[in-house]
């Protein structure tokens, strides 16, 4: 019997952490302080948040991995060591790293290590090399299914074991943004803005439109697409069966910089797809449904990445997201009446009508999708709520003060 593949989701905030748990992630990964690849874009946790993260995930029986995968300078070593020590103290399941200083210290502290995709592991010899430090190795995102499968086979054949004494587990990316360069080998942001991607400060120049001009006679070179460096997002849900059959142990969803609704929707779809694979109900019609659902949240259009051995050139054709649903912030929670299952909110902008689709997110609440079936102002039913008004609506789960309320509209 094959061990069931683990679904690993991103958690850039407490909202996303709850969203990942609610949607059925087996494990989550997150960064604390500045030594992680989303130092700029995500609301990083601090060392003080570790006990609450551990408590939340332990209750939900979800594993937690801490990303500590930037390059490390001498002046970072003290902070790195205190992060690793706190991770040990708070029983974090593993540290995701690529710098040798981190690998070495984590080994000394006897805390499991996952080799980050930043290490670009592309062959079984590298797996063997890192197995002295790591029990799980994230492969480079640029490998084909055949190559991934061959590495997994070789691990079994050569009996490559990690420090815990078990065969090394292979992790791959299943969904999310792809880099135009081989992971971690891009210096574009450093050249243009002195903002090193390898310190988590990438300004994402590759996502912009460019004109290519011949310097000598200033003739513009004709390119099909102005977004010549922006890769579309990876989506493997339509060939997830093939991906699981390679024998990988962990499927990772990218997106620590993304909002809670993104984490919820992507995790939920992949959870359903993985379960469907194992119970024999992974069908074409379900794939269509998941693809539709995945397109409702942030995406640059999907392609299958490098897994299918297709040529490069799947580029995004627009800036930003192609999500089919857009969320507009309209207000915040003020209270909840558990007996009636009614939430109270304040509308801070826009207006709200009966029938509108809604999204509620919060650090403890996670993500709730609902619709405005009934709206009341001063306990009187109304059709429309205006800016500034306090109102109530039925919500199936508890909401909390400070939860954010969004209106969902179709089309971006």
């Amino acid at each position, binding site marked *: 019997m094959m061990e069931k593949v683990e679904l690993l989701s991103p958690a850039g905030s407490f909202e996303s952490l709850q969203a990942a748990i609610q949607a059925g992630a087996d494990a989550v990964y997150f960064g604390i302080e500045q030594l992680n690849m989303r130092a*700029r874009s995500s609301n990083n946790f601090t060392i003080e948040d570790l006990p609450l993260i551990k408590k939340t995930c332990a209750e939900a029986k979800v594993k937690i991995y801490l990303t500590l995968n930037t390059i490390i*300078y001498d*002046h970072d070593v003290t902070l*790195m060591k205190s992060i690793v020590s706190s991770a040990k103290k708070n029983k974090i399941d593993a540290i995701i790293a690529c710098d040798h200083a981190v690998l070495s210290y984590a080994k000394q502290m006897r805390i499991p290590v996952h080799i980050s995709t930043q290490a670009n592991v592309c062959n079984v010899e590298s797996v063997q090399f890192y197995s002295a430090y790591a029990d799980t190795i994230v492969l480079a995102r640029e490998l084909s299914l055949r190559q991934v499968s061959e590495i997994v086979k070789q691990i079994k054949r050569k009996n490559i074991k990690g420090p815990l004494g078990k065969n090394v587990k292979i992790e791959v990316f299943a969904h999310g943004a792809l880099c135009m360069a081989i992971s971690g080998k891009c210096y574009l942001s450093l050249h243009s803005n*002195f903002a090193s991607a390898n310190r988590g*400060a990438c300004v994402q120049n590759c996502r912009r439109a460019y004109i290519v001009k011949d310097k000598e006679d200033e003739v513009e070179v004709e390119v099909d697409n102005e977004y010549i460096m922006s890769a579309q997002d990876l989506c493997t849900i339509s060939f997830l069966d093939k991906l699981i059959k390679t024998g990988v142990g962990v499927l990772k969803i990218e997106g620590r910089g993304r909002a809670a609704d993104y984490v919820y929707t992507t995790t939920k779809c992949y959870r359903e797809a993985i379960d469907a694979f194992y119970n024999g109900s992974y069908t074409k019609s379900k794939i269509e449904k998941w693809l539709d659902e995945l397109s409702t949240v942030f995406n640059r259009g999907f392609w299958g990445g490098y897994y299918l051995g297709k040529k490069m050139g799947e580029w995004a054709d627009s800036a930003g997201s192609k999500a089919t649903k857009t969320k507009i912030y309209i207000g915040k929670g003020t209270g909840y009446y558990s007996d009636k299952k009614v939430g109270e909110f304040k509308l801070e902008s826009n207006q709200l009508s009966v029938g509108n689709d809604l999204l509620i997110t919060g650090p403890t609440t996670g993500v709730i999708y609902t619709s405005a079936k009934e709206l009341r102002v001063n306990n009187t039913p109304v059709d429309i709520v205006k800016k500034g008004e306090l109102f109530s609506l039925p919500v199936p789960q508890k909401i909390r003060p400070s939860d954010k309320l969004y209106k969902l509209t179709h089309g971006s």
Partner: protein
Amino acid sequence: MIRIIHFREKCVGCNACVEAAPFRWRISRKDGKSILIGGKERKNVFSLLTGEDEFLANISASENCPVKIIKLEKLN
């Protein structure tokens, strides 16, 4: 006179300011973030008044900062 303002919380510890103006910036060994030498703290924001002779070095510290958390003001 110039005023240097440092929004330290968002620092990613890349060392760029130290390279540009080593006499005014150093990296804390404790938390790996940069320190405005001689700066006074108020609500997590550090600031310092200093001579105009430091302007050039610090403007490049400010420009090179990947997270743009160093601001310079010229005072008359």
